């Protein structure tokens, strides 16, 4: 080739691209190009979108943007932890054994609404709710059945419960004792995140102050007695599912985390004595890159706050560990098989974001509790990612992507702006009482719904690509007889127990609740005496009272 006699200087490549982009035809379908949370996106990211002073980060090193483990998933895969629980303890016990036999590596207990709300199955307002959203647990007797034949020293268990969390943890400890497993070796996670209940999920019972006391009591107790237990799973999932954006989920969740840290420090605990056992729980929504950026930003923010603001010295205190669940709200009742594809995309985002454990939703979860088959497909989706796709072979494979890094920075700065707002309101609890979070979330939910109505966002099968014929899919139904059986069971427990021991335990608990003792040993004794969950809660309500939310639309 001869030399070409160039007269004009070559165009600057970036400028050339911009010109070429502008002159290219643009899609004209009216669909938003911002993230699902409304962050405007450029069509292209380059190194100009990153701060010039950026130094290279590595996984396993502060501030852990690229992951908390130097070896990523090469060292250990994420825990595949499918949340399940339905009907009676006996039926759920069978499902657990089925899931464990199919390669699941940890249990995750879903409780029914009466259990979550701290009331027994024979309470009048439990009517119609028993065993629907999860398993019904009224007393230690049900818990013994739930974990019968499952060695609690060999598995880890996550329990999704909040207001009555301390009671369920005590029941777990008591079942382990009966199996001969000491509390000191028990591993698992208690959700125990009351702040997000006030903010989003609304399963609160006591007012904020005594609610926080119970949380701190359990953290303090576990630090000494159940040291391998994750005492709290600070949850963004419910905040997101209630309609928040990704940035709000990130900001509100981490703000809650800091509020727990503040409360424990106020109790007199040293930050490094409890912080390593705090864990987080996030949503993985359908906007793929935004989710990955959210997970990366979460680790970076937490590490900085723990080290710089709280002065934590132990590296474990800096490391944000989290569980992820794919987004229930992204699933559709229409063409429900598509939910398998949605869940796979969301699960991939969680994995690329470096999650420690993962729940993948079953395709029929939008309609009811999953069947055995749909639950297996959901688990197999994770196994496919782990063993077939190759994505687990490289640590933080998207690290260094101009787009991902810029979006991670954007998430971080949006979160920091929210922290400032919350601080200006006086902290998380005053902000709850001012309905700040509730309004923010309701606004975002309404904005998203409006975008769907205007077709600026598409949900396949819902506002576009619809079909007339729907193929009904099998859904799991709860036998209505279960209700009367569970009611009979709790009454039987009340009849057969040592009444004097039970009454004494509840009287001691009431007295302790009025004072300042850590309530965990009192609750544990009441549980061992077969006091029911409702009786224990009602004892505490006598002292603490109940909380009523101001209804804001």
């Amino acid at each position: 080739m001869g030399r070409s006699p160039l007269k004009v200087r070559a165009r600057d490549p970036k400028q050339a691209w911009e010109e070429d982009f502008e002159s290219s035809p643009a899609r004209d379908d009216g669909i938003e190009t911002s993230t699902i949370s409304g962050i405007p996106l450029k069509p292209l990211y380059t190194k100009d979108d990153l701060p010039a002073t950026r130094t290279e980060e590595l996984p396993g090193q502060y501030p852990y943007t690229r992951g908390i483990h130097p070896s990523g998933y090469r060292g250990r895969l994420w825990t595949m932890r499918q949340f399940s629980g339905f009907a009676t303890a006996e039926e759920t016990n069978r499902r657990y054994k089925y899931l464990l036999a199919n390669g699941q590596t940890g249990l995750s207990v879903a409780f029914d609404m009466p259990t979550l709300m701290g009331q027994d199955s024979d309470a009048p307002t439990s009517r119609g709710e028993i065993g629907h959203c999860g398993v019904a647990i009224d007393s230690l007797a049900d818990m013994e059945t739930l974990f019968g034949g499952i060695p609690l020293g060999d598995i880890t268990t996550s329990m999704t419960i909040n207001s009555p969390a301390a009671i369920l943890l005590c029941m777990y400890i008591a079942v382990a004792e009966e199996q001969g497993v000491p509390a000191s070796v028990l591993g698992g996670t208690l959700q125990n995140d009351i702040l997000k209940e006030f903010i989003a999920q609304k399963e609160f019972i006591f007012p904020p102050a005594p609610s926080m006391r119970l949380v701190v009591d359990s953290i303090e107790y576990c630090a000494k007695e159940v040291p391998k237990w994750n005492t709290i799973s600070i949850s963004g999932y419910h905040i997101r599912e209630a309609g928040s954006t990704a940035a709000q989920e990130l900001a509100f969740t981490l703000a809650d985390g800091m509020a727990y840290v503040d409360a424990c420090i106020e109790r007199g605990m040293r930050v490094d004595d409890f912080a390593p056992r705090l864990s987080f729980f996030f949503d993985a929504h359908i906007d793929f890159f935004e989710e990955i950026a959210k997970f990366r930003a979460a680790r970076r923010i937490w590490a900085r706050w723990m080290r710089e603001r709280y002065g934590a010295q132990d590296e474990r205190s800096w490391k944000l560990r989290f569980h992820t669940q794919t987004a229930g709200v992204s699933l559709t009742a229409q063409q429900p098989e598509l939910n398998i594809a949605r869940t796979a995309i969301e699960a991939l985002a969680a994995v690329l974001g470096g999650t420690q454990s993962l729940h993948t939703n079953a395709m029929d979860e939008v309609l009811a509790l999953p069947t055995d088959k749909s639950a297996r497909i959901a688990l197999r989706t994770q196994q496919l990612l782990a063993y077939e796709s190759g994505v687990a072979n490289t640590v933080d494979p998207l690290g260094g992507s101009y787009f991902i890094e810029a979006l991670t920075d954007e998430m971080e700065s949006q979160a920091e702006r929210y922290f400032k707002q919350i601080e200006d309101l006086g902290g998380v609890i005053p902000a709850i009482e001012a309905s700040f979070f509730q309004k923010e979330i309701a606004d975002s939910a309404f904005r998203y719904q409006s975008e769907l109505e205007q077709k600026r966002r598409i949900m396949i099968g819902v506002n576009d690509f619809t079909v007339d014929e729907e193929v009904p899919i099998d859904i799991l139904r709860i036998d209505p007889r279960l209700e009367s059986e569970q009611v009979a069971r709790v009454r039987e427990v009340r009849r057969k127990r040592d009444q004097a021991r039970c009454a004494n335990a509840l009287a001691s608990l009431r007295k302790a609740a009025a004072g300042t003792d850590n309530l965990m040993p009192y609750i544990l004794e009441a549980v061992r005496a077969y006091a029911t969950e409702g009786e224990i809660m009602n004892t505490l309500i006598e002292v603490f009272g109940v909380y009523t939310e101001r209804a804001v639309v």
Partner: protein
Amino acid sequence: MSPTAVRPVRIIVAKVGLDGHDRGVKVVARALRDAGYEVIYTGLRQTPEMVVDAALQEDAQVIGLSIHSGAHMTLFPAVVQELKRRKATDIIVFGGGIIPDDDIAALKKQGVEQLFTPGTPLQEIVDWLRERFPAGPA
């Protein structure tokens, strides 16, 4: 609005049952309000008795119920029954939530006028109300 002053349709929206999933109910409440209806949201964990009390006190023509816990087969008919007991069957009841098709048919037989499931456009709910109350907000 029609030329003769028509009282705007007043709607009680309520969360029955124990679950606290209030995203849907709030979005619907806002949409109905934006469509010109008078909307009163009761808040969470309302018993059928409380819902009917509110509807009578507020002189509402419509009750909209939301539930996501799976207890709809118990609680929706209980609201209809309570209206019968209080001789207030002119108040119509509609509902929303995660409700399988078979249950929808059964609930309609038991007096719940209309049910809306996830993915329903808000406009569809508004259109249904306009049809049901032609003299309501324009």
